[in-house]
Each structure stands twice: as C-alpha cells, then as structure tokens.
C-alpha cells in the first residue's frame, strides 16, 4: 500500500524541517499531521529527523576555548598584556 502515498509524501517533504521546528504554517501543519497519521514512512522520516537534530544538539560541546588556544590567540593579536585581566 505504501507506494500509493508516494506522491503526497514527496509534496510534504519540503515541510518537515519547519514542522520539526514548530514554525510550519497552521494549515500546512494540519495537512502534514493528517498525512502522518496514515503514513508510516513519513512518520519515520519525521521521528528520525527529530532524533538526528537532538543528537547533534546534545553532542555539541558548549565548553570554552582551550587555554593554550586562547593564549596563542591573544599573542597573535598582540593582546598578551590583557590576558590576565579576564578569566
């Protein structure tokens, strides 16, 4: 049965990124959600896309610059004398 959906699936593919961000236009959103309720393939694409983004966001290190990199940067910029005044 899956192949019968394909045309609609392709048409809605352009909307899933905004859907995942919650910024999709209301009308399109309803249309997509209706499609999702009956299309397993698209549900998987939406779920795995959400998971993909989530994995990258949790994996992203939010730590600061390595100390030695910061020191060399200050030196290159001739700001060494200011190095001690900040953290």
């Amino acid at each position, binding site marked *: 049965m899956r192949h019968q959906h394909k045309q609609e699936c392709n048409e809605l593919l352009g909307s899933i990124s905004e859907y995942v961000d919650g910024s999709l236009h209301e009308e399109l959103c309803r249309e997509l959600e209706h499609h999702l309720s009956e299309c397993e393939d698209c549900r998987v694409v939406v779920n795995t896309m959400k998971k993909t983004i989530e994995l990258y966001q949790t994996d992203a290190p939010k730590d600061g610059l390595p100390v030695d990199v910061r020191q060399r940067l*200050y030196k290159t910029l001739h700001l060494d004398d*200011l190095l001690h005044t900040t953290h």
Partner: protein
Amino acid sequence: MMTDETQTEISVEALKAGDRAEFARLVDLASAPIYRLGLKMLGNPQDAEDVLQNTFLKALQSLGNFEGRSSPLTWLYRIAINEALMLIRRQKPQVEIAEEPQDEESNLPTPVQLTDWCCLPESDFLTTESKRALDAAILKLPEKLRVVFLLRDIEGMSIQETSEALGLTETAVKTRLLRARLNLREQLSSYFTERLIEEREK
C-alpha cells in the same frame, strides 16, 4: 550560554576607536563559538585554530569598514565562515566542482532509509563510536549545507541570524537546512539501523 562579563553589549564605537580592552572582550565573547565552528567545519584542531586566528586578524584589519548594522558576533561569524571555506578550497580544490546545492525545494532527495531507530537504548547514542559517526556525517555534508546546519542547529542561531551571517535569503537558509537535515538523517539512519540489527541479534 553567556557569562556575566559578556552580558554588557560590545561597544562598536569603542572597537572602532581602538579600545584594546573592548576588543579583548569581543575575543572572549566570540572565540569559543568560532573555534567550535571551525572544528566542525574542518574536522581538526589545527585548522580550527588557524580559522580562529585569521578571523580576528581580519576583523582587526577591517574594523574601519564595519558599519555595525549587524551585531559584532554576526560580523565575526561571517568572516570566520569565509576563512573556513577558503581553507577548505585550498585543501581540496576538487570540492569546488561539486554541484551547488539548489536553493529550491524542488528535487529534494527522496528518503531512502525508512527504519525507525529512535528506540535504540540511550547508551547506544553516547558511545565514542557514535559520536565519531556524528562528526563524520557532518564532514560529508556539502560545505554550503554544513555551514547552515552548524549555525542553526548546533550553535542555535535563528533562521534570520543565520541568513545575516551567510548573506543568504531566509528562504535559501530554510531550504539548505532542510537538505542538510535530510542528508544527515540518511547517514545516521544507515549507521544506527546497523546498531539496531546488532541489538536484535544479541
């Protein structure tokens, strides 16, 4: 994400007047995200450090032309992205031949991987190998998609900020973001579907 000392806005006037302490403040505000961007764009610490240093050197040189219409951070991002792209081109000139990603929504690649791997145990996502797979997938993205994904989804910039930093329309940013996400989804699906099969064979 911001620490107390970066709360106060950077003064563009002070920067232009040659206030070194203000420039140092800008360095401390922006260097970590720019270094991270370089790491993800280029995949190694040495190149990331080159991008970081060149970005601030260029910024110092072109401060006079900075009009302050975008925030200093967005301005620095734009310089950093150009530096990173230049470095990529120098290292892999053949990459340039790769076709430009289309900014239209037509001809989007039809999803191929249709296994839902979200149900894998959380620990499977946290292994060193998984993290390596995530990094490798980003590096396989065409660079113009990569940079949009990094700014929007990893650095958490808005569509509008990303479009300003890249000098692209918001529509182009949205389409590139969609293409980047679809591409990464395929790559991660291939990887994690295998993990799923292994899991079931246990």
